[in-house]
């Protein structure tokens, strides 16, 4: 049998997933000489045809003949005389010179296949033809034509005609044109080949990676979003998740930082969990990658699939509730025996996209002055004893004789830079009939816009796949990823650079005339908060994080019968992490800093073993795809940490921590592991290409649950109906494709800490009697019934292509309800514990995923398509603990927990006081009753719900244009229906004079002439204290529109490339984060962020941010 020519993408995907089964014929290769072939025969042919000879042998040996005439030159005449030789030998003799080999199937069919031939002498054959649009019949100029596996190629001319010289008429031509499906056409001896090209995306024919296999998209009943390599390549990126942003409806990627390694928070179809983690499950080439997806080399990624509904995710059972992201990376080339080499590189320039309106030196001093003036209003100063601002101690150093500041430092400017980054990847891919190889090397240097923040990555990946026998294939894939990083703290509410770049006194220079960094207490005449100089902190502090990740797997697949394959694979993820912090000896000031170092090492080792059977059957009207398997997993962790302080100087840093004189905190170590054991099954059946059903289930056991509830069962069912195959719809011209899907199922969430069901005793030390003595305390109440969170999800979806695919859209409605939330249920503290981890409460998410693509203009010269995608999601806490009592899950900061969990409200609900403006002079008496004076904030007496952090609408609007060899992308993203808690207003606006702040505290502050303002009267914090609470004044509309990406690409003409010996050359220029339109009252750097990344309730709550860059990138993709 000669295999049907598969589209290369299909072939590659099915190869990767290894779920493919050779179901078109049952074959055994000649490599294992079967008993029948060992029979001894005698033959005698004289100028007989090949057909005669083969029939003769077949009859003698008891074979049935199977062949395709085109391949076997049946009429060829041969003469042959052999006595008492094996059938095997006879057949080889007969086929001599035909380029064919043979095989015998289990049911004794003799089949013929093309044989790998040694290199022939190069004799070029000329091929020519015309390329047209399949639907309109118009000729297409500029279509690239490439001889597969070579750099030989050309392009069609203005009249759509081409001519090229191929090495052989057995080669295959690849026709590609933007907006159209790439076609591979075997020459098969022809010299004239006319091709008509189909528009891209004929729904249903693509193959989709579904976890433990692939399926035809038309057979899929679940909701799965896909991002292809081409889409990923449009935007050269340092981070795989960033490229996924806005590409799949229902997948919200919150990029909460502009730092090179800033965390991305990924939420698929809303937060379904409060305590157990909301990140999706990442599966990279079949292996779970729990950490490190953001450090992965994105150039390696072939495609990403996002599994959203239960029909799709149930195969991952207890870990599927937050959705699953399947990442498929590049492998060897299956195209030909040739070697192809690719280079992908980019160079980018980033700058801070926006600045906060920090006060300058003059404004800063004005606030100080007014603060002194106002001091008697707040405190009980006897007349004549009012405090006076006396700047004489700083005259000559910070002020001139007239009292004007000598320096006016813009710290945002000083601490930021133009970041220059570059990224390189070299790939080598080769392959042939029996094996393929891929090797990839990557180096990335990614600079942040804050001084001294950077990430470097060197990674290597090797892939080898082999099919030594028709019944056996095996392979391995090993990735080494090393990253180095200097990180800027982005969490919490401390004196970090992201804060001090706004708040450090502008009257100080970066360095004093002595050359030393300025310190806050170089200001003698003012009382300033003890803050480190931001430039010094950025440059002199180490926050180094090194990671070494070994990640890979090996598999072995056995073809048991033509329809049944067994596959076993072993995956491993081993990460060594080292954190080294060093704070120099005079960071805050020479007096208060002693130099401190903290070093932490940890190692995480994960392994998984998965074994499964795949059964495929396709009889034309019946298609069956079934999977049955079992899996074991274990994750082991250990760490060591130690801190020291009091260094004699800044030489040793973390290189010799024994140079310090004091231990800072006790050395510590920890260790844990968890295990899982699972059984899973999936069966899908499609009848007549029209009716599909998928049943999926997984039974998971986890060590992390109570001894009474180790195992959980997660089933789902999905149905699909391709209505456009029904007569009554296929008659409607406008409808090209219509499919309706529905699914229901249950998935789980297990992402909690270890030992949570056990009562254990934790140990440490306490001070007692002058030294450390051991101390121990029970950690929690035992809960042997602890079990999974369970998410039940319903999904109804529709796919529709209209008007010859001018419009295609896909819409899904979902409702998912998570029950048995793993919640720290508050219990009476009289038990000795505040909470117990228990299965209580539920949360629901419902919404719509929508994606629509229109092909607005489609001419041979110009192509324009628009894609609108959005997700609307409504999150609601349905129930909480026993009494549905409110839970205050933090982040805990000014005024206590900034969020509340309350039944009926969504996760991420802000909680605080209401600010009704400021007390005006008419209300002086009323204000006094409340202990206030006019000009102070007027607030509600109780805290209440004051905003919502998670957006209701997120989406993107992407326009693509192709003009000749150019392509343009304009990617606009939007968020609507969220709010921001601007925590930085606490110190930047509500509290004055202790630090610098934003200009509104001066220009819009309450004065007797400006009473209608929410901004309080200037009050000198060190003299008069402060009045600041988390309140509605901090809340602002979080909706925004972002110019996420504008890019232009140029694909070189195949004709030119051929001259240069290249297969592909593309250059791109792109502008990322070009603009952000947000509410005018938003005062921060970027309307998306959190300072409390570890807390799932904290989206859009931040105390300053690492500013996001606006990045200009030049990229190149090269293949030869």
């Amino acid at each position, binding site marked *: 049998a000669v295999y049907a020519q598969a589209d290369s993408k299909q072939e590659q995907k099915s190869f990767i997933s290894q779920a493919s089964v050779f179901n078109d014929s049952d074959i055994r290769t000649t490599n294992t000489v079967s008993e029948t072939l060992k029979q001894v025969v005698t033959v005698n042919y004289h100028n007989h045809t090949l057909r005669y000879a083969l029939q003769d042998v077949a009859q003698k040996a008891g074979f049935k003949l199977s062949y395709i005439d085109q391949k076997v030159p049946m009429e060829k005449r041969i003469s042959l005389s052999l006595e008492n030789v094996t059938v095997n030998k006879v057949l080889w003799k007969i086929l001599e010179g035909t380029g064919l080999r043979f095989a015998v199937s289990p049911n004794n069919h003799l089949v013929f296949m093309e044989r790998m031939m040694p290199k022939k002498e190069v004799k070029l054959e000329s091929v020519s033809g015309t390329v047209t649009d399949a639907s309109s019949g118009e000729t297409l100029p500029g279509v690239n034509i490439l001889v597969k596996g070579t750099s030989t190629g050309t392009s069609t001319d203005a009249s759509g005609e081409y001519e090229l010289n191929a090495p052989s008429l057995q080669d295959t031509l690849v026709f590609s044109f933007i907006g159209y499906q790439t076609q591979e056409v075997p020459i098969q001896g022809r010299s004239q080949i006319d091709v008509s090209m189909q528009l891209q995306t004929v729904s249903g024919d693509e193959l989709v990676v579904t976890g433990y296999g692939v399926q035809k998209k038309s057979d899929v009943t679940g909701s799965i979003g896909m991002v292809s390599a081409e889409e990923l390549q449009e935007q050269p990126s340092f981070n795989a998740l960033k490229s996924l942003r806005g590409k799949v409806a229902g997948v919200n990627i919150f990029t909460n930082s502009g730092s090179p390694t800033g965390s991305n928070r990924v939420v698929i179809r809303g937060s379904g969990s409060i305590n157990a983690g909301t990140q999706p499950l990442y599966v990279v080439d079949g292996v779970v990658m729990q950490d490190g997806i953001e450090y992965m080399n994105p150039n390696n990624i072939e495609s990403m699939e996002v599994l959203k509904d239960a029909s799709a995710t149930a195969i991952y059972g207890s870990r599927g509730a937050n959705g699953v992201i399947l990442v498929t990376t590049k492998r060897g080339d299956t195209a030909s025996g040739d070697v192809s080499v690719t280079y992908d590189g980019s160079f980018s320039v980033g700058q801070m996209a926006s600045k906060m309106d920090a006060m300058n030196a003059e404004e800063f001093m004005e606030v100080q002055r007014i603060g002194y003036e106002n001091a008697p209003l707040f405190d009980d100063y006897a007349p004549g004893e009012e405090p006076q601002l006396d700047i004489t101690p700083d005259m000559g150093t910070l002020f001139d004789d007239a009292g004007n500041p000598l320096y006016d430092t813009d710290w945002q400017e000083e601490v930021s830079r133009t970041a220059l980054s570059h990224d390189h990847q070299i790939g080598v891919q080769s392959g042939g009939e029996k094996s393929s190889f891929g090797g990839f090397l990557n180096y990335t240097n990614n600079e942040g816009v804050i001084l001294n923040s950077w990430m470097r990555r060197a990674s290597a990946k090797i892939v080898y796949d082999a099919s030594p026998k028709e019944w056996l294939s095996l392979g391995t894939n090993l990735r080494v990823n090393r990253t180095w990083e200097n990180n800027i703290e982005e969490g919490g509410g401390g004196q970090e650079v992201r804060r001090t770049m706004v708040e450090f006194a502008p009257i100080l220079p970066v360095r004093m005339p002595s050359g030393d960094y300025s310190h806050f207490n170089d200001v003698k005449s003012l009382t300033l908060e003890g803050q480190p100089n931001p430039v010094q902190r950025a440059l002199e502090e180490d926050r180094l994080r090194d990671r070494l990740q070994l990640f890979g797997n090996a598999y072995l697949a056995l073809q048991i019968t033509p329809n049944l394959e067994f596959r076993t694979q072993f995956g491993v993820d081993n990460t060594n992490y080292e954190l080294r912090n060093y704070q120099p000896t005079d960071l805050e000031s020479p007096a208060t800093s002693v130099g401190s170092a903290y070093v932490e090492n940890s190692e995480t080792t994960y392994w998984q073993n998965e074994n499964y059977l795949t059964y495929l059957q396709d009889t034309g009207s019946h298609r069956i795809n079934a999977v049955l398997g079992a899996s074991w997993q274990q994750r082991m962790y250990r760490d060591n940490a130690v801190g020291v302080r009091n260094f004699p100087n800044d030489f040793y840093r973390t290189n010799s921590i024994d140079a310090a004189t004091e231990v800072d905190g006790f050395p510590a170590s920890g260790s844990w592991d968890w295990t899982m054991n699972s059984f899973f099954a999936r069966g899908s059946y499609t009848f007549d290409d029209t009716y599909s059903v998928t049943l999926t289930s997984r039974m998971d056991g986890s060590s992390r649950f109570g001894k009474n509830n180790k195992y959980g069962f997660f089933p789902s069912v999905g149905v699909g109906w391709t209505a456009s195959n029904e007569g009554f719809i296929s008659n409607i011209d406008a409808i090209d494709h219509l499919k309706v899907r529905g699914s229901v199922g249950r998935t789980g969430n297990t992402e909690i800490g270890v*030992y949570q069901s056990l009562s254990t005793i934790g140990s440490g030390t306490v001070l*007692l*009697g002058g030294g450390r003595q051991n*101390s121990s*305390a029970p950690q929690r109440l035992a809960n042997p019934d602890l079990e999974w969170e369970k998410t039940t999800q319903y999904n109804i979806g529709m796919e529709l292509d209209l008007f010859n695919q001018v419009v295609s859209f896909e819409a899904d409605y979902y409702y998912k309800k998570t029950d048995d939330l793993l919640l720290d249920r508050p219990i*009476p*503290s*009289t038990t000795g514990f505040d909470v117990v981890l228990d299965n209580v409460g539920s949360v629901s998410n419902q919404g719509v995923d929508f994606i629509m693509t229109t092909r607005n203009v489609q001419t041979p010269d110009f192509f324009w398509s628009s894609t609108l995608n959005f997700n609307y999601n409504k999150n609601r806490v349905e129930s909480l603990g026993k009494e549905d009592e409110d839970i205050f899950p933090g982040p805990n900061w000014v005024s206590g927990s900034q969020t509340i969990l309350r039944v009926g409200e969504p996760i991420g609900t802000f909680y605080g006081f209401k600010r009704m403006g400021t007390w005006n002079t008419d209300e002086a008496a009323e204000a006094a009753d409340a202990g206030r004076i006019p000009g102070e904030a007027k607030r509600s007496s109780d805290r209440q719900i004051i905003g919502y952090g998670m957006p209701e609408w997120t989406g993107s609007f992407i326009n693509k244009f192709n003009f000749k060899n150019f392509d343009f992308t304009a990617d606009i993203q939007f968020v609507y229906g969220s709010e921001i808690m601007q925590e930085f207003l606490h110190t930047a606006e509500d*509290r004055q004079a202790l630090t610098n702040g934003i200009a509104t505290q001066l220009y819009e502050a309450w004065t007797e002439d400006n009473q209608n303002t929410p901004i309080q009267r200037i009050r000198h914090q060190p003299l008069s204290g402060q009045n*600041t609470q988390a309140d509605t004044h901090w809340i602002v509309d979080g909706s925004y529109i972002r110019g996420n990406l504008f890019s232009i690409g140029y694909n070189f003409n195949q004709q030119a490339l051929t001259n240069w010996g290249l297969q592909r050359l593309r250059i791109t220029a792109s502008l990322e984060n070009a603009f952000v339109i947000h509410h005018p009252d938003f005062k921060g750097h970027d309307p998306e962020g959190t300072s409390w990344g570890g807390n799932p309730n904290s989206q859009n709550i931040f105390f300053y941010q690492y500013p996001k860059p606006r990045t200009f990138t030049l990229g190149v993709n090269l293949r030869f």
Partner: protein
Amino acid sequence: CQDFLTESPKDQISTDQLLGSPDAASGLVNGLYRDGQGAGFYNSGGFGGADVMMGGYMSGFFDNEGKGERIQGQVAQDLQVDPEILNQFFDGWWSGHYDVIARANTAIKYIPDMNGFSEDERQRLLAEARFFRALNYFSLVKFFGDVPLITEPIEGLTNIEVARTGSDAVYSQIINDLNWAINEGNLGAQPFPMNNYRITQGAARTLLADVHLQMAGYPLQASEHYADAADAARSVIQAGQHALVEHGETVEESAYNKLRTSDVDPEFVYGIEYNPEIASNDNPRITIPGVIRPPGINYGRTLNAYRPIQEYIWAYDPDVDLRVQNKQLFHNSIEREGQTFEFGEWAPYLWFEEEAIFETGLGGRDIRVYRYAEVLLIAAEAIARSEGVTQEAITYLADVRDRAYWQTDRSAIVAELNGLSEQEFVEEVWKERLRELALNFKVWSDIQRTRQYPVTDEDNKGEIIFEDVIGHSNNWGQTYEEYHLLYPIPDDEIQTNPALEQNPGYN
């Protein structure tokens, strides 16, 4: 495959293993020293002041510069204490105390049957566990009134909603625990620091005396407990292990400065131990107003978190009382590099540590919860109430006052006390408690049990009269009602335990 999924912790031990490990059991007791009513309650890390300072703010005599940011100080002065606004704050108290009680209960349940201890050690650990259970229940019953009384460890999720138990029953349990500790506990006799900072006979007896004194007053008014208080205090005095620290040659070496700079003396009955390297004391940070920045100050930010307002300072007669002179209990200026920085207000000096403030940023002095001076004052009051104004009672009060009136003859002090009626004498003791124990956080407990509000006079400094607290206004113009004398039970606790009822006045 069941074994594959069995969880066996590696960096924590299971509760079952506790029984086989004397170390873990003694660790269970060691931890009690730091938690609940322990170090956490007394340590002042930031803007809010230490938890124990809440009473000072409630009394209206102390102010916190950081109150705009951590509201407990503000709402206490405003008498707007509320179970919701201060939910987190009081929940910290409540759950911290019950955490220690639960751990003490675990120790008391399991230690008697454990091997690996000497008999003495076993009894001592049990006595310490009972001391801390008593200490934490005393704090709860004093501040919240009736509270759930739990004396067995809770080990499952059943029967966890316990209703409030009458105060008298809680007090009985406290007294039982302390008597057990005193009689069976094999506790050391020396003062606390000489006993390696472990609970002593003196500490247990002093706590017992304090408990009886509180019971004798409001709200129980069980006046028969004055005699018990007298007995307990007298037993400490008669043991002869403790004494008042005496003045040195100069005012810089006064007894008060010695208490400030040293930790090891016979006046130390019970307290919170600190050490710069292991557990540092943050109180030096709160001894200088934030606006004062003498050169070389080693805290990024200081604040006067427990500022005695003028009305408090007027309780002292500056002509005779050493305690109110600059740099004794309080200070109002600091000298640095030849320059004087005037505060314009008073700040605690007792917690001022030169080295911490200007060199290390890490305080190391202990905080004294009970001093021998308080034992003498409890004895004086309790004896006067139960036995009359005896010479013994007069002696004890005179001991404390004589040290403060450093240039006044003891005979003159005694003479003034002679012939006072019981009520007059007891009020003199109250005055002395106000002055002597200013930084020992007694002012609110005294107001709670006496229901008398001290009123000072700018024109007659040192004069204090006592007026009914209910209906009286504090120094911030807010009027006390009876319900203010107990704190609200935190909202969280009410929500999670339907068996609890809120204190009156807070609904």
